Structures are given as structure tokens and as C-alpha cells.
């Protein structure tokens, strides 16, 4: 098992946020955590990333307890995490200060191309669209060759068309690089489109209500009855009828 979250509970003061979370993720798996806002899913990701020590329980990666942030596991925010004072290639190279200059240049070139930013190497983030900034942040994360990527609502600030394109991009990159990905979203459609497994969480204090395996190959047909059935079962699980 790559990531093992065992008996994790968390409180902020008197407010219980997470309750007894058990989740294991295998190497190369893409697991999406979905739940209503305020259910503690981002907190869970911060705990897994080593940014927040849990009140109780433990996270282990490759059997080793997580005690803090680590370049082997990179956290990706909405596109606001890119550094506006650095160019595209400088952003991608940000974490590459322990490798040789030659290796650094090689990796920057590789990831500029992988995320489709060729021609923008010398551009600053302010000259990029929201989707490009998001891809830049993913490239910066991938450049340090982490085993695990944590994505916290990475496409939340993008318009719906860009968001669809970004999901396809993410799947392409994931298939090329075979990273273990833990992805948090409140978008149920997004979870079913991307995930190997969807973890459905309850309202606060967040508990895991159910884990669904999405046994559909990529690319997924969004009008496939199987897709719709899976999606509807999550809507039902969260207690929402999907009528507007």
C-alpha cells in the first residue's frame, strides 16, 4: 500500500472535523475524495501531506509515518500557488535545487512540453490563462518527481469548459507518469470522471460513508448508463436529488 490513513480523527479546538478515517491507496492509483463543503476533506489532504498533524491516528507512506511536508509528496493548490515573480521555466525549476544544472534543464524542458506550455517558457504567470497556470503548477509538482500528488480542488477556479479540458489533461499526465494521486473535490461529476475509486464523505464531522470503485476504462463516456448510475448513487449517498 502506498498511502495508509489509519484511525485519523481531527478537531480544531472543540470542533470535530474528521472522525475515524481509514483509507488505503495503492501505488499509481487515482483516488478522489468527494463531499459537501466543510466536511473536512481538505483537512484530510493537509494531514496526508504532512502540513497538519492529526489529533489522533496516523498516516503512513510506504510504511513510513508522515511527520511533515516532503518533496516526495507534492501538494497542488488551485492555480494561486504559482510564483508570480518567476517565469514558467523558473516556476517549474523551483523545487529542482538538489539536482545538477543539466538535469534541471532536462526536466524543465520535459515538463514544459508535457503540460503543453511550449513557447511560454519565458512568460510570467500573469500572461497565462487560469488553465495554463494550473498546468504550470502541476508541472512544478511533477518536476521534482514525487511519488504522490495531492490535489486540493485544483480546477475549482476554472470555467467549466477549461475544467473539462484540464481533467482530460490530468488523466493523460497521470497515465504518462503513473503517480499516486489523491484528489479532493466537491464536484461529483468530476470524481466519477477521474477516479479509480471515489471516497464519499459525510457532513462535518467528516466520516467516510462509502468507497465506490469506478470500473470504467478511460476515456469515459459521460452518457454511458453505467457512468450515470455511478454518479447518481453518489448523489443519493450525499443526500441530494439531482434535480435543479
Amino acid at each position, binding site marked *: 500500500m502506498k498511502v495508509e490513513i489509519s484511525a485519523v480523527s481531527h478537531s480544531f479546538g472543540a470542533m470535530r472535523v474528521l472522525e475515524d478515517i481509514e483509507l488505503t491507496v495503492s501505488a499509481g492509483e487515482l483516488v478522489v475524495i468527494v463531499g459537501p463543503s466543510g466536511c473536512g476533506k481538505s483537512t484530510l489532504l493537509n494531514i496526508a*501531506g504532512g*502540513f497538519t498533524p492529526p489529533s489522533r491516528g496516523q498516516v503512513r507512506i510506504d510504511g513510513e509515518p508522515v511527520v*511533515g*511536508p*516532503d*518533496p516526495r*509528496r*507534492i*501538494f497542488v*493548490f488551485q492555480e*494561486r*500557488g504559482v*510564483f*508570480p*515573480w*518567476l517565469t514558467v521555466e523558473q516556476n517549474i525549476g*523551483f*523545487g529542482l*535545487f*538538489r539536482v545538477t544544472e543539466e538535469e534541471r534543464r532536462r526536466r524543465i524542458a520535459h515538463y514544459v512540453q508535457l503540460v503543453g506550455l511550449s513557447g511560454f517558457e519565458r512568460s*510570467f*504567470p*500573469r500572461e497565462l490563462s487560469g488553465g495554463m497556470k494550473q498546468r504550470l503548477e502541476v508541472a512544478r509538482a511533477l518536476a*521534482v518527481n514525487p511519488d504522490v500528488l495531492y490535489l486540493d480542488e485544483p480546477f475549482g477556479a476554472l470555467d467549466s469548459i477549461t475544467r473539462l479540458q484540464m481533467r482530460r489533461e490530468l488523466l493523460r499526465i497521470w497515465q504518462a507518469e503513473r503517480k499516486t494521486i489523491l484528489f479532493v473535490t466537491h464536484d461529483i461529476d468530476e470524481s466519477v470522471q477521474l477516479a479509480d475509486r471515489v471516497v464519499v464523505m459525510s457532513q462535518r464531522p467528516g466520516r467516510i460513508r462509502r468507497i465506490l470503485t469506478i470500473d470504467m476504462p478511460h476515456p469515459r463516456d459521460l452518457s454511458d448508463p453505467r457512468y450515470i448510475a455511478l454518479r447518481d448513487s453518489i448523489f443519493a449517498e450525499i443526500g441530494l436529488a439531482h434535480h435543479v
Partner: protein
Amino acid sequence: MRNVERLVLPVLFAGVLVAMWHFAVVLTATAVFPSPADVFRGIVTLAERGTLWSYIGDSLLRVGVGYIAAVLSGVPAGLWLGWHPGLARALNPVIQMLRPISPLAWMPLAIIWFGVSNAAPIFLIFLASFLPIVVSMMNAVQNVPQAYLQAARNFGLSTPQMIRRVIFPAVLPRAIVALRIAFGIAWIVLVASEMIAVDSGLGYLIIDARNAGMRYDLVVGGMLLIGVIGLFLDVAIRSAERLPSVRWGFRE
């Protein structure tokens, strides 16, 4: 059209203003207010005598020493306070209490401590620019987005690396603005302090022109020189805003 707006229109406006000034003086036949030509002649006379350059040099030296000392101490102090919230909380009430005191209120103390010398205005300029720089830098550090710090820690940067590679560039645009504002204050305080604490400089020029011979042409000439030099220095500091690595902090 762009160039016309940026260069020609301001020059045209200034020209119209000078013309209005000229005709106002001529039409009212005033004896106390000099015409633009009087002022120009006055400045030329000062330049020929050499006092103009030595006064400008003295003023620039005082503002330079006081302001650079404030930058060299205020920037690190502000970064340090911003980085240590507990320390900032402890010192902030005192800082906020000192801030509304005009630097000129320190003048009597400055004269007792330093006498009539360069040190008195330099001290006042230092005081005037130090606290605004400290407060702005402190706020700038406190407002660095959490996402930047979290990313830096995630990539395994040590604290000194984080300060150099994230905090410093992240606060740079605000630092430039803070340094500019502080310089504006320093320049104002310079002139006021030279009217009292020393016997040279542009502030002294104004007060001496009035006291020694009711030379209002030199009073107005001194005012214009202060304005023009201040403008050039401000433009010089502003040019830092065009550096590629800080453009993000300013509107296009």
C-alpha cells in the same frame, strides 16, 4: 496618441500654468509675488554664485544618509517583525503610538542632541522614513499568501532559503511602494528641518531668502527646486516598478 498623452499633455498643462502665473502677476501688479521670469533670474544668480549647487548637494547628502540608513535598518526590522507574529504583537502598540507623532515634533530634542549640524536633519529624516518602512514591510510579510509558504515548505526549502526565494520576492512590489512613500515623507521632512536646524540646503534657502531680504523670487525658486528634484527622485525610484520580476505586483 499614447506618447502625446504621456509627454505632450503634461508639458502643455505646466506651460499653461506658468503662463497664467505670469499674467496674474502682471495684471495685479503685485509687489510681493514674483513672476516666473523673476524666479528664473533668481535661480540663475544663485547658480552663478555657486550656492545653488552646494545647497542642493547638502540637501541630497542629508536626505541620502538619513533615508538610506532608514532603509538599511527598516527593511530587515520589518521583515523580522513580519516573520515573528508574537514579536510584532508585542511591539505594535508602541510603533502605532509613535507613528502619528510628526517627525518635526522631535526637532527640539534633535537640536539638543546634535546641535546645529547635519546630524539633526539626518536624524529627523531617519525617524520620518524608518517607521513607515518597518510597518509596510511587516504587513507585506504577514500578507504573503499561505499557498506560497506551503509550497516552499513542501519542496523542502530551509528557512533561510524560504526567506530568500519566497518571502523576499513576494514582498518586493510592496517594498518598492513603501520605499517610495517613505522617500516622499523624508523629502518633506528634510525641507522643514533645514529651516530650523542648519544653515544650508534648500529648506534653508527658502527661510533665509525671506529673513535676509524679502527675496520672494528665491522663496518661490526654492519651492520649485524642491518640487522638481523630488519629482526626479520619485521617478527614479518608480523605475524599479518596471523590473520583470515585480511587474506582477503593479497594474499594467
